[in-house]
């Protein structure tokens, strides 16, 4: 069996014309507001990802929500990702922001170490974050500080472990029982 080249399927991976050349206005505005809010900006596949330090995420979000010209008043999605037990930092939390007036989108990303899984809740910025954060807590074990009601949401309250972590087996550790 010949080894497959990961890129071979895509028809000549072209970089989008403006990728990497025009800096994202959102990232620029964030940087102008507070230099330390932006660790890295990645522009790929027509999407902008801004990596924000954990301690600044709530402040950065409330700035983006109200900043004139940006107005990210809609939190479209919030989800976690586990890179795997051997990776450091191990966890990612992604915030997908959208503006109902400007119609643009941006992704914020926070990186978390396994032994300190705390990040500030953004429920005070958008109330819709409530259930998203509960889901991320339930499935990854990320703890959102100052969340009003951080309980499991999809799995039973007495569930052991966090199901979407990479070291959690697909079929669980043992058959679930109500005993």
């Amino acid at each position: 069996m010949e080894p497959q080249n990961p890129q071979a399927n895509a028809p000549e991976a072209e970089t989008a014309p403006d990728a990497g050349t025009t800096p994202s206005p959102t990232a620029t505005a964030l940087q102008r507001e507070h230099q330390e809010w932006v660790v890295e900006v990645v522009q790929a596949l027509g999407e902008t990802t801004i990596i924000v330090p954990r301690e600044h995420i709530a402040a950065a979000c409330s700035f983006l929500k109200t900043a004139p010209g940006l107005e990210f008043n809609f939190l479209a999605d919030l989800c976690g990702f586990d890179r795997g037990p051997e990776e450091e930092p191990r966890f990612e939390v992604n915030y997908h922001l959208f503006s109902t007036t400007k119609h643009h989108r941006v992704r914020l990303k926070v990186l978390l170490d396994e032994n300190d899984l705390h990040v500030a809740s953004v429920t005070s910025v958008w109330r819709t974050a409530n259930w998203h954060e509960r889901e991320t807590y339930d499935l990854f074990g990320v703890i959102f500080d100052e969340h009003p009601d951080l309980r499991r949401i999809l799995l039973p309250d007495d569930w052991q472990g966090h199901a979407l972590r990479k070291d959690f087996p697909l079929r669980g550790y043992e058959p679930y029982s109500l005993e």
Partner: protein
Amino acid sequence: MGQMGQMGPIGRMSTDVNIPPQFEVVDQPLDTQMTLSMGPQHPSTHGVLRLELVLDGEMVVKATPDIGYLHTGMEKLFEYRKYQQGIVITDRMDYLNPLGNNLAYVMAVEKLLQLEIPERAQTIRVLFCELQRIASHLVWLGTHAIDIGAMTVFFYAFREREKILNLIEAASGGRLTPSYFRIGGLMMDVPAGFENRVKQFLDNFPQAVKEFHTLVSGNRIFQKRTQGIGYISAEDAIDWGLAGPSLRGSGVNVDVRRTNPYSSYETYDFEVPVEQDCDVWARYMVRMREMDESHKIVAQALSRLKPGPVKADAPKVVLPDREAMKTHMDALIHHFLIVAEGFDVPAGEVYHPIEGSKGELGVYIKSIGGPKPARVHFRGPSFVNLSALPHIASGEMIADVVAIIGSLDIVLGEIDR
């Protein structure tokens, strides 16, 4: 379970008639409040939703949804399946809008692969997504009306839905779980004579919508049960992340087909219905008008159908035609590799939103290379819309909670995943 049986003397009614529409839960003596567990088997909860309602008389003080009864770990399962195997999982999330789920998922993968989709495939995708939107809205209409007490509408709505399911079945072989959209295009082209059948449906559908309006919209009981009920302001709706018709019923003109067009939606001529009243009735009207708009889009898509390929020219991703497989060695090898090993997707991450029948349906896919995704996350509009229920329902009457749930148009398969 809630604290049952803490009700006061039978027949006791609240003396305070001027209860503000929104109020905080206060510690009251046990004889004035009662906790009622509604669901998970209550018919108006559309599946297995359980609500814990704190009641003061018939007034809802606090509603707490309890979800997860249908949780089957779909997002976990994606990580153990090849990209093309994930499509069948998406069918089972929002089972009233499976083609929308298919589209969101395959478009996200196509974005990672940077695939170009042929025009005919894009047009057929739009055609089916709009038919699916009508079908989804018809289920909503039928069940919403039943919840409020109008039985007849259900049969009229499901009669029309049946015609759409027949069309989907004709093209894909499946009715509820079509898996018709594939990475790089469609499973196969539509069968001969399909255009005429769609045309027949289109010719008859406006008359059906008229019937719905006669049955429901002009009904005084329905109006009384929906107008002024379940108010959520535009600002709150955005804050709670409401999407789709539920958001547009609060006067916010946001539709992903307009704000972030995909699959050539920018080339179609349609209106985005918006209502200003912020109540159950407004959300009802938005969906009813959306059916008309979807009808318009289907007609346009149908008129655009020109012969052409329905699969992208990417032999390492798209399964070859059956005939080519029998005559060409390389096609056979590609087929074997795709099925046995899958195809590698370059590392990267995408969030692809589409306008599902219930609102913004977003798919987040993270790839670290290889034939399986590292993470697939669905932003289910039902999940987010339901999370606003405690806000909308508090201060309403218990009978109106049923109307409010109906107006949010939730599907538990998508909420619990």
